[in-house]
């Protein structure tokens, strides 16, 4: 096997944005190492990333054209909007229909619930306000004495902000309906799924800014799968992937930080302290995955007053007298979220399901795989899409 490009921290620092030389070298290295692992395009090396921004960068910069055919880079459940499943959306919709003001991040507006999305409820007169930050929601609460519930979605990095807002003593009419999710537990689940055969993970750089890369050590021990933390520039991603396939080739189950300018081993301890002061992990449903133990973040008992679920009797049952529409049966968002299918595998992709009239959550959010693929020109992948996976495949 010929010389590889070693990735030492010093070199990582020298990555230049859109440096064609560098990009070519990295791509060549990626190809070389992947080939050395010795797979065929029919059963490629499979790695997963769990970040919408990673997928955006990959799609936008056409990186899949650069990846070797024997490497499959799959997006996993990394879109916080998309993995918010029906029960939680229904809770927000039910509350809204009960007359409670809801503040939410914009992307959540059009995510389908069992009967309605928040946008549908809004069209029928429910009061839903779009905010970019939980701090803005607190401000709105301050502006009147009416109850305001912040529908808190997003992963742990976003949950930090919600926690900080609560700790800073917001007005008494402000409460939180938490649909926050925690990523490391879902990696555990995906690592165990026989259909996915993931051999390594690319972790998101900015999330790791908060959690630190040390958080992956136990995971790596347990599952014997390497994890590389990577940034968002195309060169960062290429470099991260190269490191990952090297680890796979050498069968080294380790955590490597390829994003040292933003990520340290312990991470941001202050943010972590805020997070766990307010939230506790509990099991729950993610769209596409029936149960992720410890995958949901809920408010701790001490914050019961701020917990919309304790504060209100949420009447979800009224939303259930409803047969699932025929199209949604065809929607394979769940499989896409779990990384066992790609948007191109979906019958509805680009036809009945487009950003203007999305059928599933993956087409709603800017971090959803389907929307990303649709935006950046459909199927950027040059190879034939793999067979839908079934038993033993």
């Amino acid at each position, binding site marked *: 096997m010929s010389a590889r490009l070693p990735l030492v921290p010093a070199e990582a620092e020298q990555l230049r944005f859109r440096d064609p030389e560098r990009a070519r070298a990295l791509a060549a290295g990626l190809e070389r190492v992947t080939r050395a692992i010795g797979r065929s395009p029919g059963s490629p090396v499979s790695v997963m990333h769990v970040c919408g921004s990673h997928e955006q960068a990959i799609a936008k910069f056409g990186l899949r054209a650069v990846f070797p055919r024997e490497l499959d880079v799959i997006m996993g459940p990394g879109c916080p909007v998309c993995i918010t499943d029906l029960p939680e959306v229904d809770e927000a919709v039910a509350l809204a229909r009960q007359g409670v003001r809801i503040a939410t991040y914009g*992307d959540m507006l059009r995510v389908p619930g069992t009967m309605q999305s928040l946008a549908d409820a809004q069209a029928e007169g429910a009061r839903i306000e779009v905010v970019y*930050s939980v*701090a803005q929601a607190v401000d709105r609460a301050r502006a009147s004495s009416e109850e305001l519930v912040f529908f808190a979605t997003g992963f742990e990095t976003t949950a930090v902000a919600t926690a*900080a807002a609560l700790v800073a003593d917001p007005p008494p009419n402000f409460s939180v309906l938490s649909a926050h999710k925690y990523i490391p537990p879902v990696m555990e689940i995906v690592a165990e799924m026989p259909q996915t055969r993931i051999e390594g993970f690319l972790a998101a750089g900015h999330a790791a*800014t908060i959690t630190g890369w040390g958080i992956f050590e136990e995971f790596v021990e347990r599952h014997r799968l390497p994890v590389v933390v990577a940034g968002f*520039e195309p060169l960062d991603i290429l470099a991260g992937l190269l490191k990952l396939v090297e680890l796979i080739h050498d069968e080294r189950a380790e955590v490597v930080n390829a994003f040292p*300018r*933003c990520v340290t081993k312990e991470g941001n301890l202050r943010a972590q302290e*805020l997070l766990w002061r307010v939230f506790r992990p509990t099991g729950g449903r993610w769209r596409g995955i029936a149960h992720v133990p410890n995958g949901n973040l809920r408010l701790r008992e001490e914050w019961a007053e701020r917990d919309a679920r304790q504060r209100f009797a949420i009447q979800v049952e009224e939303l259930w007298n409803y047969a699932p529409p025929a199209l949604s049966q065809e929607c394979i968002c769940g499989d896409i979220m779990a990384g066992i299918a790609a948007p191109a595998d979906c019958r509805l992709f680009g036809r009945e399901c487009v950003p203007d009239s999305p059928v599933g959550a993956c087409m709603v959010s800017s*971090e959803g795989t389907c929307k990303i693929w649709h935006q950046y020109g459909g199927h950027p992948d040059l190879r034939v899409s793999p067979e839908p996976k079934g038993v033993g495949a």
Partner: protein
Amino acid sequence: MCLGVPGRVVHVDGALATVDFWGVRRQVRLDTVDQPVVPGDYVLNHVGFAIRRIPPEDIVETLALYEQLLQESAAEDMMRADVEAEIAAGDVPPVPG
């Protein structure tokens, strides 16, 4: 929105900082950052909260991606749109100085 957005701190008032994002000024909360932040520092911002003080030696590197993105049109590019959203996460206050 996994992407945080960097900006330059212009003014600090307790836990609240006024941050300049390529000419646009916003308020960002500092409760969540683990180092002291002074005007002139750069912070990585996510949904209106600073998650990291960017070490001086990394600033140029960090800004590079965003500068490229900001040349795109937000209407057509998702990454650019996300960056805009992050910038908008701050309030719009009257800024001293």
